[in-house]
């Protein structure tokens, strides 16, 4: 039974909490939805409560909120210039959502929202959708210059344009798969090593002694996953900034 319990995939199961079915679509409130709500609630509450005193000299928690705000602000300004600051709320929400979802997923028994590709793909599609819609709204057909880099010989142009189109189309895929795969792989690894601890310690004294190694690995992996949680949120936000920069300045 102990070995059976170590099912690294189990943590990704979607469980319906409140079944809702509208027009043949299953729109149930699931554990995934619950943790989306939790993510939003935790992030909003943290940002709201830590800044409620509006002190001139920030408390530690207030300075965390301010650091996150300025971190994302600087990131966006560096990548997309001051014009890009109109997307600041969008990028900041994305960063905070992904970051808090990743961090919440690190708690045992918690569901990791970002370990489901549809969620990360939804966010990536939102980013690319914003880029495409804003790009065409601002530049009209000039947005298509994005696919025609300057200074390329004419005979190479079809090839280059093809490559640029492929690279643009693969952006939402790479953006979503990167986050999803990182979270999924990290959590599976963590679960597998933790499972070793349980399985080995069931074997008696030798097993308990032997389980020290996977336990140490699990601890180290938890630290690594904490880093990955930050890093992937950062990478997601940085790439969003760069893609938004394309929407603002398509002419390279």
């Amino acid at each position: 039974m102990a070995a059976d319990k170590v099912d690294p995939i189990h943590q990704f199961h979607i469980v319906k909490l409140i079944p809702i079915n509208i027009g043949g679509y299953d729109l149930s409130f699931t554990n995934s939805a619950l943790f989306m709500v939790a993510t939003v609630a935790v992030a909003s509450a943290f940002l709201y409560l830590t800044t409620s005193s509006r002190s001139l000299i920030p408390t530690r928690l207030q300075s965390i909120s301010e650091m996150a705000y300025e971190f994302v602000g600087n990131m966006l300004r560096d990548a997309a210039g001051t014009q890009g600051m109109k997307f600041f709320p969008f990028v900041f929400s994305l960063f905070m959502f992904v970051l808090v979802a990743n961090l919440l997923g690190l708690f045992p028994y918690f569901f990791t929202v970002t370990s489901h590709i549809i969620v990360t793909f939804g966010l990536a599609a939102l980013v690319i959708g914003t880029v495409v819609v804003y790009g065409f709204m601002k530049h009209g057909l000039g947005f298509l210059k994005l696919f025609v880099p300057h200074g390329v010989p004419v005979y190479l142009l079809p090839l280059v344009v093809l490559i640029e189109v492929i690279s643009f189309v693969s952006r939402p895929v790479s953006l979503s798969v990167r986050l999803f795969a990182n979270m999924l792989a990290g959590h599976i690894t963590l679960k597998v090593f933790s499972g070793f601890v349980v399985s080995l310690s069931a074997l008696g004294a030798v097993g308990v002694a032997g389980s020290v190694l996977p336990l140490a690995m699990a601890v180290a992996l938890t630290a690594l996953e904490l880093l990955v949680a930050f890093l992937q949120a950062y990478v997601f936000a940085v790439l969003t900034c760069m893609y938004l920069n394309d929407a603002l300045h398509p002419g390279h």
Partner: protein
Amino acid sequence: MFVTSAFAEEAAPAVEGGHTGTEGDTHSSTGVPAEAHGVFPPFDPATFPSQLLWLAITFGLFYLFLKKVVMPRVGGIIDVRNDRITQDLDHAARLKGEADAAVAAYEQELAEAKTRANAIGQQANDAAKAEAETARKKIEAALDQKLGEAEARISSIKANAMKEVGTIAEDTASAIVEALVGGKASKAEIAAAVKSVAR
């Protein structure tokens, strides 16, 4: 949530163990759609509509909340702080300017005082020199006068002496002439002769 989780935990191994046989039972007992156990959960399309809907709802609300409430507030805090820092820096710069001006004024006054002191010293020096000069001149004049007087006395004494010498010579000459010649030479002749010899 925990109850459901534990419940699912019981159910999941059952699927792993008896994948084909107990499929129907498991599904009915957990209420998970038929596809949920067949495929890798993150790739199960049956969960997509629900996840997308709730993602849209939660992320949309989150975006609005951040845009309308949190970001103006955090931005405001940071702006206020930056303003305050700028203000304080300006204040400090003004105070520094004042201090610099005070130092400059002090140094200027010091320099003026030095110049004045030098001028006074120079004046005193000049006055003392002039006084010494006049005193020296007066003494020199007095000495010159005394010298002149002394010279005059010497010359008068000399003249008297010479006059007496002439008389003695004349007397001597007349006596010699008398003794030698035996005649009397006139007084005027002897005087002329003495004079010519005395030259």
